[in-house]
């Protein structure tokens, strides 16, 4: 925590947070909102959130919630569970059969991660569920909706999959107005369990999104995640995952589509703490106008984690000379028998390809979209569920 208190700054926002948190926690008191001098936030300034006095939000009624959700494509099948302005919208929410609702439990404070600290101080409602042994719970859409101005929510979710259980989670984030969404997920996958976590972050253009996903993956279990980061003024999707027993498998894939003056950030820590595990990461970022993209991907391989197979690829496509990508891949390896590869590229659209399409009658804007989609194709193909992939495709340029 010390790193942050040194470089952190006090502000109207912090005062507002501290005041709200005071009743339950003192954790924020000693800290500040990280400035760019804090390494983890160097490329993602939180300036825009420091001036605002973030208030507690009033709950959303079902009709407004439905309207907001209809702004994006989401699955028509499966179950839907909605949080509107931080509170469960009970009349629209249901869980798959066999999925049990549980009580919230104490979690690792992750106190070197600001998104977690903030959530730790202010978090309250959330969805805590358990999928019992060997149950395939199917598809659950979790919608996190916001509407209002200068409001913040700090949901705390806990998803436990027992041995051999499986679940597909479509994590939809959408809203209107000026708000901060700061959800935390704690995900525990027991032996042989599999969670597919497909997220669409489509927050309002003046919103901030600071999500932190903390995942423990046991032996032969699989955390298969894909995030379309495509909204918000400032949006970070942050994953901290531990491969805790042999043959765990983790995918932290994503696509970021950033335009205007927005900033989208995908930050991850993939921690190989056991031998024979496999982690895969493909992140593609498309930037236009004066947008900024951030990719910070760390792979940490413990001394015991022999035979680790790690793959990381991050690629950016700059559609404007004023757009910017900051990417920071980091490999920290203490085992000697591992296979870890990583690569990064930055490029622009190919004029010849663009001309070829236009010479076939395809208007320029459409030709660009075709080439951008082509750039994103091999990342999008990593969404194993075809129907969900189609939904994300619809959301790419919206």
């Amino acid at each position, binding site marked *: 925590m010390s790193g942050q208190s040194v470089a952190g700054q006090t502000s109207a926002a912090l005062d507002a947070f501290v005041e709200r948190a005071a009743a339950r926690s003192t954790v924020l008191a000693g800290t500040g909102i990280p400035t760019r001098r804090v390494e983890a936030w160097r490329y993602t300034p939180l300036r825009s959130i420091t001036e605002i006095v973030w208030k507690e939000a009033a709950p959303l009624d079902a009709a407004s919630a439905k309207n907001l959700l209809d702004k994006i494509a989401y699955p028509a099948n499966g179950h839907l569970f909605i949080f509107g302005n931080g509170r469960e919208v009970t009349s629209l929410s249901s869980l798959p059969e066999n999925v049990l609702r549980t009580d919230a439990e104490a979690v690792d404070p992750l106190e070197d991660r600001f998104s977690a600290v903030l959530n730790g101080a202010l978090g309250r409602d959330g969805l805590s569920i358990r999928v019992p042994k060997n149950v395939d719970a199917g598809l659950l859409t979790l919608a996190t909706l916001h509407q209002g101005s200068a409001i913040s929510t700090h949901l705390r979710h806990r998803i436990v999959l027992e041995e051999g259980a499986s679940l597909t989670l479509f994590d939809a984030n959408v809203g209107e107005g000026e708000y901060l969404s700061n959800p935390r997920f704690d995900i525990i996958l027991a032996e042989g369990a599999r969670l597919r976590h497909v997220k669409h972050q489509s927050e309002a253009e003046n919103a901030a999104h600071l999500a932190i996903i903390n995942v423990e993956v046991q032996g032969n279990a699989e955390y298969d995640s894909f995030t379309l980061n495509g909204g918000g003024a400032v949006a970070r999707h942050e994953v901290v995952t531990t491969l805790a027993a042999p043959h765990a498998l983790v995918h932290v894939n994503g696509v970021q589509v950033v335009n205007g003056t927005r900033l989208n950030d995908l930050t991850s820590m993939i921690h190989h703490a056991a031998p024979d595990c496999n982690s895969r990461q493909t992140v593609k970022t498309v930037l236009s106008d004066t947008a900024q993209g951030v990719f910070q991907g760390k792979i940490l391989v413990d001394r015991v984690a022999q035979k680790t197979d790690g793959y990381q690829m991050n690629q950016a496509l700059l559609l404007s000379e004023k757009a910017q990508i900051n990417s920071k891949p980091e490999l920290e390896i203490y085992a000697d028998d591992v296979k870890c590869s990583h690569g990064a590229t930055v490029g622009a659209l190919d004029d010849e390809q663009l*001309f*070829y399409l236009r*010479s*076939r009658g*395809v208007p320029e804007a*459409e030709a660009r979209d*075709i080439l951008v*989609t*082509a750039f*994103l194709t091999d990342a999008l193909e990593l969404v194993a569920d075809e129907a969900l992939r189609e939904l994300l495709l619809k959301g790419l340029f919206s």
Partner: protein
Amino acid sequence: MSDFLNICGLQARIDADGTPKDILKGIDLDIPRGEVHAIMGPNGSGKSTLSYVLSGREDYEVTGGSATFKGQDLLALDPEERAALGVFLAFQSPVELPGVNNANFLRTAVNAVRRARGEDELDAISFLKTVRAETKHLSMSDEMLKRAVNVGFSGGEKKRNEVLQMRLLQPSLAILDETDSGLDIDALRIVAEGVNSLRSPDFSALVITHHQRLLDYIVPDRVHVMAKGRIIHSGGPEVAKILEKQGYTQFLEAAA
């Protein structure tokens, strides 16, 4: 002077790493409706440049002259507008589009052009029917429709894919830039047949080639010789035969 394609004193240059390089140095060329003209000329004489300038590639700066097509100032139009108006360029080196499915690409192009021409778009099924008929015609396997555009295609397959696009887009002016190079003997006949069957009073073609053989199959109305950015000689089909036998020397000397 025809009211179809009329090129007058056309000059164009390219920015070659900071220094402008003049490539077209005053091209005069008139292609009436329904005629097929051929251009032959030594490597580097500017044939592909002419085809790019006519289809709207932005790297080239037009520094003089004009090109009108169907009464419109061709040079003022975007590439996609030229395509809608009926200009089609079969590229000398077709571009690969990784991640773009060939069938989707073809359908997008066909429907974009149909939209622009005020025609109804083709739905997936009628498109597939049309494209299947054409691929059969060109002896192309349907498997090539499932792949990414031109990616991993052999030289000859790329050229056939160009001819497929030409047939689907139904141009009124097709510019074929060395579409015959890289084709085996059977493919050459198939491709020539693909062009010939489009021949009508409303279809003209500009065929760029190095080989007389193609012109045995696609018999041109006129043959032009291009050198150093100019048309230095024009005549009937016999010009190609003379070139085949004697090379460019006599025309180059006569022009000098």
